[in-house]
């Protein structure tokens, strides 16, 4: 059987890495935006957050970029799945005693954390994006600085008053942290941007990125839930 | 009596090889395509020959017993490869390398062959560097050298402690390149079972597919054996477990003469034997003798206490240590040739000064070197060897001296070949350790790699062509010829007979017994009585083997015990020939030490008047005495002297 591949394994890894790193930069922007909801907590109309969200939703550049982002997610997911299927196929029969020599334990579970994150993304998409676009009805409007806009801040706060949802959210974001902890430095390795000298720095930076993003996102629902 | 014609070219020594090449016959490129060559073995000699012959355009079929050509035992050579580059500016030259090799071989090798070896040694280094072999370098980016036993210059190129590995991988790369080009076809997990001759010429082989058990026929215009040495006849040796002498032995039984079978090299720096379940011995590179000092206690009572574990080597004060090599051989010190170092160790241990639980060990001490150069330098030079030593013995050689003892390492003897590396069977060439050609009665360190690659890269592509030049009109042979039928039938019957014994004892039982006889009586020191006993004992053991060996499993399929049994059956015959050869040679020379023939100081005493010849044995039939043929050795360019490593 010929295994000639359309893209070589390395090319697929480059794409995975570039998409992954791109998504990480997006997550930082997203986190900055989300944190602003805490600023006006209790105000009911969340001016800082809503204004920023409104800017994002109306800026033509961002609107175009949003599709790039979707594409990046999609490619990262599809390539990830293809690679994983190939990986499973390359060892049809496994070991009785499983090995455990991986440097980073999370590296074994990228597909698992990835799948949970994907499920989370779908729910997230339904809860926020589709609501904000009015595809799912229920969004209220507020007037900030004389401009009428969606009160997305309230949507968030309302959702985070649900204990089950908060629990799910926290767990999913923890897994995202695990995913990134391996993923960040792995991207550099796949792109060949790693050597003995600055390799350890990249790995350290990967831990920092993972912790900052995961904790940053997790803090928001916790604060909202416990201050309701 | 058939006369042995060594076919040494005319002319002064330094011109012989050039003259040969200038006047030899060649095969034109279009005709090379029509010629098939079989190469058995993928070590340095086999892989380099197959690659080079493939490059020339011949059709080459290569066979190896392992799962990949990269695993041949050349890979285990540690220390280095000699060449007369004189990069260090320390006075080396082609002549000096030639001289050292002849002298190191105790004047039992052929001048013309050795000179050619020294001549092409430089080309080997160039070739390997071009292949990407990562030799050790100086900070300025140029190649560096180390010194080895038996030489007063530094001429050994090395790649850490893995020179053999790197050279073999270079040759394996060249071989892979030719496989890709389609000029070489590789057959792995195949063992040569016998040689097929048609009208007196070597024309093919029968192989056994070690996975399916099938017997396969392969025909060619010429056959090259590069199947290595037969050190495993001793059971315990530094050879790989699967190294064997069967290919050469089958050729011997088909008419190729076997030369100097008793010349085996005992390597002085091996890890001592530690138990009776032991399967093999591990070599510690000779390069260790550059910085390590060899000693035993001066006082017998100290040695006894060490053996009982009451005293540690580090507790013996400097003045109570006997650095016996430095004492006996001031000029060469710890770097005397291997045979001299090995015998000196045996002498001390036999006299009761040996250390280790068995008393069969001496110390190799790095304390001085570590003090002088620092631990870092020693680690950079020998780190992997120290690590290996610690893994095996559980002792840390940075803190306590290593223990070493001689072990069987290399066989200088092998199939007799002429200057063209062709055996007495026309069309059967023999290369590397499998032939007897260049090392006389003792091989110098870092010379095996040199010889293997010299044969494969630079000698055989010329000499085989000379032979094949008049074969271009000979059409490809069919493998359904009666000659093939007959040999395959022989092989089949041999296997069936072995399987049918169905006795009680596993093969290893006999192999171990044979090894014991060989080590005790045909080993480091031999005498007439012992050799005569050995011959009798081997004959007895052989009878016992054919009555009591048990080969389980199916012959049609992967059957490791069958493979072992076939090889041991041959060793049981070869061992006898070794003893016969050792018994007939009433002198001591190089690795062959007859206790009756030694100087008052215990050095080997040659008898140049009666034994300055190559002993080539002809097979006369099972249970018949082999016939001795002598190739006299003439030294025209070198003064034959008593070997002296006491003064330069």
């Amino acid at each position, binding site marked *: 059987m010929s*295994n*000639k591949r359309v893209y070589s394994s*390395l090319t697929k890894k*480059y794409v995975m890495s570039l998409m992954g790193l791109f998504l990480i930069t997006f997550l930082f922007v997203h986190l900055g935006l989300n944190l602003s909801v805490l600023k006006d907590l209790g105000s009911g109309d969340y001016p800082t957050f809503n204004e920023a969200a409104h800017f994002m939703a109306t800026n033509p550049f961002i609107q175009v970029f949003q599709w790039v982002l979707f594409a990046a997610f999609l490619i990262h997911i599809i390539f990830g799945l293809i*690679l994983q299927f*190939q*990986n499973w196929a*390359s*060892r049809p*029969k496994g*070991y009785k*005693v499983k*090995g455990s*020599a*991986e*440097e980073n334990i999370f*590296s074994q579970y990228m597909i698992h954390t990835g799948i949970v994150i994907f499920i989370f993304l779908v729910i997230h998409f339904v809860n926020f994006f589709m609501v904000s676009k009015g595809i799912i009805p229920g969004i209220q409007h507020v007037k900030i600085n004389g401009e009428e806009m969606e009160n997305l801040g309230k949507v968030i706060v309302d959702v985070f008053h649900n204990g089950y949802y908060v629990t799910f959210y926290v767990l999913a974001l923890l897994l995202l942290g695990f995913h990134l902890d391996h993923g960040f430095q792995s991207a550099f*390795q*796949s*792109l*060949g*941007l*790693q050597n003995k000298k600055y390799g350890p720095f990249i790995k350290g930076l990967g831990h920092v990125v993972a912790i900052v993003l995961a904790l940053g996102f997790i803090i928001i629902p916790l604060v909202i839930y416990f201050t309701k | 009596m058939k006369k042995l014609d060594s076919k040494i070219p005319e002319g002064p020594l330094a011109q012989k090889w050039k003259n040969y090449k200038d006047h030899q016959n060649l095969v034109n490129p279009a005709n090379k395509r029509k010629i098939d060559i079989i190469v058995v073995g993928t070590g340095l000699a086999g892989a380099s020959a197959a*690659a*080079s012959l493939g*490059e020339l355009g011949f059709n080459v079929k290569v066979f190896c017993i*392992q*799962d*990949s050509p*990269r*695993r*041949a035992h050349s*890979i285990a050579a540690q220390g280095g490869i000699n060449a007369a580059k004189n990069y260090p500016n320390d006075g080396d030259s082609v002549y000096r390398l030639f001289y050292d090799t002849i002298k190191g071989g105790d004047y039992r090798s052929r001048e013309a062959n050795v000179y050619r070896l020294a001549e092409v040694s430089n080309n080997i280094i*160039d*070739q*390997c560097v*071009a*292949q*990407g072999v*990562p*030799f*050790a*370098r100086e900070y300025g980016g140029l190649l560096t050298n180390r010194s080895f036993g038996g030489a007063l210059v530094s001429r050994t190129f090395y790649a*850490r402690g893995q020179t053999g590995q790197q050279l073999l991988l270079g040759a394996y790369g060249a071989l892979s*390149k030719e496989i890709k080009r389609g000029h070489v076809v590789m057959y*792995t997990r195949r063992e040569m079972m016998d040689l097929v001759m048609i009208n007196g010429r070597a024309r093919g082989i029968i192989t056994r597919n070690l996975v399916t058990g099938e017997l396969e026929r392969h025909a060619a215009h010429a056959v090259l054996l590069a199947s290595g040495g037969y050190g495993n006849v001793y059971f315990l040796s*530094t050879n*790989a*477990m699967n190294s064997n002498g069967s290919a050469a032995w089958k050729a011997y039984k088909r008419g190729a003469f076997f030369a100097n079978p008793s010349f085996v090299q005992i390597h002085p720096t091996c890890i001592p034997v530690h138990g009776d*379940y032991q399967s093999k011995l591990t070599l510690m590179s000779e390069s260790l003798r550059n910085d390590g000092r060899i000693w035993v206690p001066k006082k017998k009572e100290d040695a006894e206490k060490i053996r009982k574990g009451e005293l540690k080597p580090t507790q013996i004060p400097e003045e109570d240590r006997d650095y016996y090599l430095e004492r006996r051989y001031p000029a060469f010190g710890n770097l005397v040739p291997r045979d001299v170092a090995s015998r000196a160790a045996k002498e001390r241990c036999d006299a009761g000064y040996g250390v280790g639980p068995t008393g069969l060990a001496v110390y190799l001490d790095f304390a001085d070197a570590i003090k002088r150069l620092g631990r870092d330098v020693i680690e950079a030079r020998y780190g992997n060897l120290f*690590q*290996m030593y610690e*893994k*095996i013995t559980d002792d840390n050689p940075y803190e306590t001296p290593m223990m070493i003892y001689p072990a069987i390492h290399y066989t200088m003897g092998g199939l007799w070949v002429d200057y063209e590396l062709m055996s007495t069977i026309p069309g059967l060439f023999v290369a590397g350790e499998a032939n007897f050609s260049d090392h006389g009665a003792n091989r110098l360190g870092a010379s095996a790699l040199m010889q293997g690659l010299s044969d494969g890269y*630079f000698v055989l592509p010329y000499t085989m062509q000379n032979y094949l030049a008049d074969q271009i009109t000979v059409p490809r042979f069919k493998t359904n010829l009666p000659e093939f039928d007959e040999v395959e039938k022989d092989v089949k019957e041999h296997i069936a007979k072995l399987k049918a014994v169905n006795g009680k004892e*596993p093969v290893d039982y006999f192999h171990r017994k044979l090894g014991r006889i060989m080590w005790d009586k045909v080993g480091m020191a031999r005498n007439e009585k012992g050799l005569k006993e050995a011959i009798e004992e081997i004959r007895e053991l052989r009878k016992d083997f054919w009555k009591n060996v*048990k080969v*389980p499993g199916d012959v049609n399929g*992967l059957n490791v*015990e069958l493979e072992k049994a076939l090889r041991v059956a041959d060793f049981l015959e070869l061992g006898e020939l070794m003893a016969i050869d050792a018994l007939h040679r009433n002198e001591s020379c190089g690795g062959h030490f007859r206790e009756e023939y030694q100087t008052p100081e215990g050095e080997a005493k040659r008898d140049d008047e009666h034994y300055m010849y190559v002993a080539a044995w002809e097979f006369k039939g099972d249970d018949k005495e082999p016939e001795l043929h002598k190739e006299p050795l003439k030294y025209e360019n070198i003064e034959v002297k008593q070997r002296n490593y006491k003064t330069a």
Partner: protein
Amino acid sequence: MDLKLKIWRQNGPDDKGKFVDYEIKNISTDASFLEMLDILNNELIEKGEEPVAFDHDCREGICGMCSLYINGHPHGPDAATTTCQLHMRRFKDGDTIVVEPWRAKPFPIVKDLIVDRSAFDEIIQAGGYISVNTGGVPDANTIPINKGKADLAMDAAACIGCGACVAACKNASAMLFVSAKVSQFALLPQGRIEAKERVKKMVAKMDELGFGNCTNTYACEAECPKEISVTNIARMNREFFAAKVSS
């Protein structure tokens, strides 16, 4: 010491195979792992059973012939050690040792613990060499090579081609093996000349043979008996990228 062994037995490539339990007594702690198996095999032969087939040759840790996946580790639990250099003092009296063959689609089982690793040869044949013929090469000292680079090339060249990296990798990826050869030649001026072609051909062959993809878990480096570094993989990723965008 006395031990319990659980060894994979499989009569041929098409046989289903199963684990068989053995007990073995009075093993010296100084014996090597393979010597322990030799003893077991001789006992089996004396009992009239078929011995366990396993690959081995030099028993010095350099030929790369030995394999065995022992208690979850290729070449057993010791770091930087091949199976043939693994000694029984590493185990405790009464231990149960599970011995499995390398498991990877490109390494089909031949018998018991023996697998077919010719896929590695095929990868080398695809381009793992410098295309020079015998003769006609320049003097060895014509091109000086930076010592640091030569040392790095040697580090990579130390690979023994045993396949432990593939066996250890959860994806059965051959990246460490391939990258070691690519790196060795990429670091040397002699090898640079055809570096781009080499890396492309070797990677394509590796993919074609069905090895998995690298997910940078670095299990290969941890289990490699010669401690080949994963920085070689990074170097190969670089080389491949440069080769793809420039030609």
